C-alpha cells in the first residue's frame, strides 16, 4: 500500500480543510481564580489524600452528556493530593469559591483588547461539566469575557471567536488500576482560553496563528515554561468530520499533525466506501472463543480467564489498513477497547503473530463462521471486561460506515493522534450560583485599552526605528525580554544603542553560557557598570570582565574595574607613559622623526593594555613627538 505523499502535494482547498485553534494559557497572578492559594506547583509530599467519586448529573431530558457518560462508565475513583498550606478547602470542593480574582480579569481584558475583541458588559461564571476527575467539583468554572476579535496573518484574517477566563484543572499524577491520582496544586490557576473560528485553511497558517497568539500572550503577565500553554486543534475536511486534537505541544509539528489527520480522514472515507461496496456488516453476536485457544502459544491469551471474539463481515484487509504512518484501523478499534481496561486487541488481519498460530486463526474463523472477506477481533481478559471491550469495538466498527466520526483525540509526539473520547456535546453548562455576576464597565475597559502592552512585533519594529538597531538585535531583545532593561538604560545613559543592545542580547547570554551566574546582576548594577563606559572610564571590552567580577565578588562595578586594573588612564597619565617611551626610544625618534609614529604607537598601546582610547593615544603621541623634535 502506498501512503499519500503529503506536504505541498495536497490540495487543501479542494479537500475543504478547515481548522480552528484553541489555546489555554496560565496567567501569572498572585493567587488563584477563586481562592487565595498561590499559583505555584509543588513537588512536596501530600499532607492529605482525599478519595472521591463523581456522578454524572442528569439534564431535563433525562439525557446524560455523551462525554460525561463515557467517563462515568469507567467508574473511576479519584484520589486527590491536598496540602495544608499550598491548597485549601476550595480546591478540595469543601468550601464555596471566593470572589473572582480581579487581577486575572484585568489580564483577560488586556489580552482581549490586544486581539481586537469586544469585551462583555457582564461576566457570568459558568459550571462546565467535566467528570474525568480533573475538577473536584465535577465541573470547571469558566466565563466568557470577550468575542468578535481578529488577527491578521499572511494568509488572511482569522476570527478570534471567544476569550474565556477559567480555572485550570487538577494535575494528573498517576493512573493505577485503582483509579487516577490528581494533585490539587494546579486546580484553580487562572487560565485564558482563546478560540478561533474554524476558518484557518492551510497547515502553515495554523502555525502562524498559534505563534502570533503566543506572542500576544507573552506581552502580558502569563506563566512561562512547559505545561503553562496548551494548544488544541480542530481539524476537518469536507467529507470528514470535526476532530479535536488535544495537547499539541510543538508549533513546528502542527502542519505535520494537520497533514496526518487529513490523511487519516481520507483513509477512513476510503474504508467506508469499500465497506459499502462489499455490503459489509458488524455482527451482533460476541463469541466465547476460549476453546479455540486451548493450547495456545500466546501467553496473553493463555493466562486470560476469558477470550471473546467479534466477527466483522467484509472487513478483511481493512482492519489492518494503515490510516496514519504506523497506525491502522485496528489501532482505532484498540483505542476504544482500551477505555474498558484491556491492554489491546488482536485482529485476523495481523494474525498469525504474537504466539497465535495459523491453525488457531483457521479454527477461529471456522468457529465464528468467518470467510476470506471477513475479519475477527479477539480480546483476552476477564469475562466482563473482554465482553465490554468488544462491545466498544462493535460500536467503533459500526461508525466505520459513517466514515469519519467526531472525536476528541490526543496528540502523539510524532504527529499522529489517538482516540481519547467522543466530542463533548454543547449541553454541559449551567450558571455557577456561588459567584455573583461581575459587571465590566466601559470606563474600566477604556482605561485598560489606553495602557495596553506593546505586542512583540510592534515592539521589535519600534526598537528598529527608534534606536536604529539591526533587525537581528531588535528581535533578540524582544525574544529575550530585554526591551524594558534596554530602554531603562537608554533613558539613563548616553550610549551607543547597538553597544547596549548587543550587551543585553548577546554578551550576558554568553557569560551565562560560560557558567557565570548573573543572578545577582540587577538593572541598577548594570547601569552603574555602563555609566563607567559613558564617562569613558572603561573601554567597552572591559564590561564583561567587570560584570563577572561583580557577580563573583559582589563588589561595585567601580571597585571591579579598579581591582581588575581596567580603568582608563587620564590624559596626563598617557602623556607620562608616552614621554617615558619616547625617552627610551630617543635614537629612533631623532632618526625617523614623525616616521616613528607607527612603531611607537604599537609599543604604547601594548604598554597601555587597552586602558586608553586609541584616538587619544594617537593625539598625545603626535604632540609629544612634535614637542620632542
Amino acid at each position, binding site marked *: 500500500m502506498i501512503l499519500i505523499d503529503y506536504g505541498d502535494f495536497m490540495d487543501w482547498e479542494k479537500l475543504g480543510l478547515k481548522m480552528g485553534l484553541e489555546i489555554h494559557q496560565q496567567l501569572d497572578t498572585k493567587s488563584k481564580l477563586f481562592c487565595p492559594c498561590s499559583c505555584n506547583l509543588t513537588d512536596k509530599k501530600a499532607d*492529605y489524600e*482525599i*478519595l*472521591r*467519586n*463523581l*456522578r*454524572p*448529573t*442528569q*439534564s*431535563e*431530558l*433525562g439525557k446524560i*452528556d455523551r462525554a*460525561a457518560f463515557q467517563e462515568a462508565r469507567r467508574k473511576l475513583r479519584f484520589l486527590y493530593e491536598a496540602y495544608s498550606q499550598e491548597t485549601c*478547602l476550595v480546591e*478540595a*470542593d*469543601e*468550601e*464555596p469559591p471566593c470572589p473572582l480574582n480581579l487581577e486575572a480579569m484585568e489580564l483577560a481584558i488586556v489580552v482581549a483588547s490586544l486581539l481586537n475583541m*469586544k469585551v*462583555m*458588559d*457582564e*461576566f*457570568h461564571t*459558568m*459550571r*462546565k*461539566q467535566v*467528570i474525568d476527575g480533573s475538577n*473536584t*467539583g*465535577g*465541573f470547571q468554572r*469558566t*466565563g*466568557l469575557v470577550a*468575542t*468578535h476579535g481578529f488577527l491578521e496573518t499572511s494568509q488572511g484574517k482569522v476570527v478570534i471567536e*471567544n476569550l*474565556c477566563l477559567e480555572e485550570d484543572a487538577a494535575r494528573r499524577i498517576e493512573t493505577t488500576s485503582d483509579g487516577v491520582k490528581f494533585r490539587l496544586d494546579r486546580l484553580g490557576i487562572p487560565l485564558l482560553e482563546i478560540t478561533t473560528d474554524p476558518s484557518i485553511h492551510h497547515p502553515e497558517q495554523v502555525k502562524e496563528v498559534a505563534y502570533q497568539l503566543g506572542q500576544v500572550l507573552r506581552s502580558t503577565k502569563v506563566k512561562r515554561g512547559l505545561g503553562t500553554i496548551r494548544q488544541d486543534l480542530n481539524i476537518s475536511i469536507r467529507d470528514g468530520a470535526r476532530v479535536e486534537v488535544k495537547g499539541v505541544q510543538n508549533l513546528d509539528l502542527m502542519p505535520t499533525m494537520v497533514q496526518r489527520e487529513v490523511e487519516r480522514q481520507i483513509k477512513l472515507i476510503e474504508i467506508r466506501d469499500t465497506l459499502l461496496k462489499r455490503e459489509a456488516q458488524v455482527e451482533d453476536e460476541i463469541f466465547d472463543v476460549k476453546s479455540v485457544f486451548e493450547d495456545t502459544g500466546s501467553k496473553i491469551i493463555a493466562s486470560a480467564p476469558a477470550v471473546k471474539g467479534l466477527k466483522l463481515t467484509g472487513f478483511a484487509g481493512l482492519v489492518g489498513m494503515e490510516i496514519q504512518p504506523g497506525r491502522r484501523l485496528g489501532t482505532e478499534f484498540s483505542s476504544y477497547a482500551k477505555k474498558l481496561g484491556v491492554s489491546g486487541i488482536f485482529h485476523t488481519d495481523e494474525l498469525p503473530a504474537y504466539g497465535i498460530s495459523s491453525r488457531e486463526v483457521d479454527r477461529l474463523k471456522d468457529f465464528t463462521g468467518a470467510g476470506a472477506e471477513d475479519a475477527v477481533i479477539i480480546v483476552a481478559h476477564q469475562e466482563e471486561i473482554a465482553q465490554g471491550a468488544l462491545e466498544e469495538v462493535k460500536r467503533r466498527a459500526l461508525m466505520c460506515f459513517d466514515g469519519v466520526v467526531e472525536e476528541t483525540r490526543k496528540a502523539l509526539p510524532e504527529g499522529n493522534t489517538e482516540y481519547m473520547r467522543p466530542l463533548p456535546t*454543547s*449541553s*454541559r*453548562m*449551567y*450558571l455557577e*450560583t456561588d459567584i455573583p*455576576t461581575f*459587571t465590566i464597565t466601559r470606563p474600566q475597559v477604556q482605561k485598560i485599552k489606553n495602557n495596553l502592552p506593546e505586542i512583540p512585533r510592534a515592539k521589535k519594529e519600534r526598537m528598529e526605528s527608534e534606536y536604529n538597531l539591526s533587525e537581528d538585535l531588535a528581535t533578540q531583545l524582544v525574544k529575550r525580554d530585554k526591551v524594558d532593561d534596554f530602554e531603562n538604560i537608554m533613558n539613563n545613559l548616553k550610549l551607543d544603542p547597538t553597544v547596549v543592545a548587543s550587551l543585553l542580547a548577546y554578551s550576558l547570554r554568553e557569560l551565562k553560557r560560560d557558567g557565570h551566574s548573573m543572578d545577582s546582576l540587577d538593572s541598577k548594577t548594570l547601569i552603574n557598570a555602563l555609566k563607567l563606559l559613558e564617562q569613558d572610564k572603561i573601554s567597552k571590552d572591559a564590561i564583561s570582565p567587570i560584570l563577572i567580577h561583580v557577580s563573583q565578588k559582589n563588589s561595585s562595578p567601580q571597585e571591579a574595574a579598579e581591582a581588575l586594573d581596567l580603568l582608563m588612564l587620564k590624559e596626563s597619565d598617557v602623556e607620562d607613559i608616552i614621554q617615558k617611551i619616547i625617552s627610551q626610544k630617543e635614537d629612533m625618534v631623532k632618526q625617523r622623526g614623525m616616521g616613528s609614529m607607527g612603531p611607537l604607537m604599537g609599543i604604547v598601546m601594548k604598554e597601555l593594555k587597552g586602558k586608553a582610547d586609541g584616538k587619544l593615544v594617537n593625539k598625545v603621541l603626535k604632540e609629544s613627538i612634535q614637542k620632542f623634535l
Partner: protein
Amino acid sequence: MNYRGSAKKLLESSGISIGDLITIEKDDVTYQGMVLDRSEDADDQHIVLKMDSGYNIGVNISSSNLKLVEKGKKPKLDLKPLTIKEDPAKKDISIISTGGTVASIIDYKTGAVHPAFTAEDLLITNPELRDMANIKGKAICNILSENMKPEYWVKSARSIYDEINEGAYGVVVAHGTDTMHYTSAALSFMLETPVPIVITGAQRSSDRPSSDAFLNLLNSVSAAKSDLAEVMVCMYAGSDDTGCYLHRGTKVRKMHTSRRDTFRSINTAPLACMKEGEIEILPGAKGYNSRGTVELKLNDYLEPDVAFIKSFPGINGEIIDYHLDKGYKGIVLEGTGLGHCPDQLIPSLERAADYQVPVVMTSQCMYGKVNMNVYSTGRRLLKAGVISGGDMLGETAYVKLSWALGHSEKLEEVKKIMETNIAGEIEEKSSLDYFLL
C-alpha cells in the same frame, strides 16, 4: 420573571419573553442568544443571554436594539414518567422531604436547576435506590432549613408516625443541613419508634457531580433497613467519598460551615459507620433500641416560646428580663466553661425562678458536662434555680425544653424531665474518646 425596571420595560416593549432567541444590536457588536431570566437581586441594566456556546452573558441595555429571531417554547421540566413496580421481596422505605434539595435536575438548555421533591424525581436522579427498597416518597414542605420552625417539627413527626403506622420498614427524612440537628433532636423526643428514622441532606448541592447527596441518601436508605430503631442523622464521616456515620439524633451538631463531614457526634461516639450501603455498628452504640422492641408513640406537644441565649462577657440582665416580660416560658442559657455566666445576670435569673420560668444551663464549650458545683458562681446559679443541662448540647437542650414545657408547666416537673435521659441526650459517663471526633 425576575426582570424589573428598565430591563423589564425594554423586554416588554420589544415583545420578548424568556426563552426567546433574540439578537441584541449595539454600536459595535451584535449578540445572539436565548433570553434567560435574571437573578432577583441583580440590577435592571442587563439582559442575560445564553449563547450557542453554552455561556451566559449579560448585555447592557443602553443603546441596544433587541430583535426577535424566534419565539421560544416555554422551557418545561419534562421527565419521562417512571413505572415503579413494587417488589414484594424488597422492604418499603418512606422518604419524607422537607425542602432540602437532596435531588435536583439541571435544564442545561436554560441552565436552570430544578429541585426534585417527588419520589419519582428522586428515583430518576438516583436510580440505584430502586435496587435497595420499594421507595415511597412524600414532600411535606418546601422550605429552607434556616426557616424551619417548631411547628414543622410537629408536622414532620406526624408524617413519620403515619408512614410507620402504614407499614414503612424505615423512614428517611431529607432535610437542609443548617438546622438538621434541631430537627433530629425534636424527632428524637417526639417519637418512640420501632423502626429506624434517618435524617440526611447534602453539603454540596445535588446538581453537581461531586455532590454528597447520593451517598448520603444511599446510606440512609440502607440505615433505614437496619436494626437501629433510633432517630439518627446520616452524613459523611470524612471528606472522602467512602462512608457515612450514623449519629444519635440528640447528640449531633453541625460543626463546619461547608465541609461534607460537618456533622459530628458530641459527647458520644457515632452509632454506626455506613460503607457502600453496609452497616457496621460501632462499639459506642451501646444500649440502642433494636427494631421492633419499642411501640410506636407520638408525643408531639411543643411549647414554641422558648429562648436560647448565649452568655458573653458584656451581657447584662436586660436580655433575660426582656424574655420574661415577653412571656417566654423557658430559657436555655449557653454559659461559659462548666456552666457560668456573669454575676450581673443572677438577679434576673432569680426573677425567672419567681416567674416559674425554667432556666437550663448548657456550655459553649459543647464538649464536656456542665457542673455548677465547682465554683462559687455556679453554686449561686444553682441557688437561683438554674437547671443543669449535663452534657447535653445547647441546641438539644433548647428543643428538649420546648418538649418538656409541652408536657408540663410545673417547674419541678420540667426540671425532672430536663435532668432525665429521654432519648440518649444525656450520657452519664464521659469517655476519654469523646473529644474532637
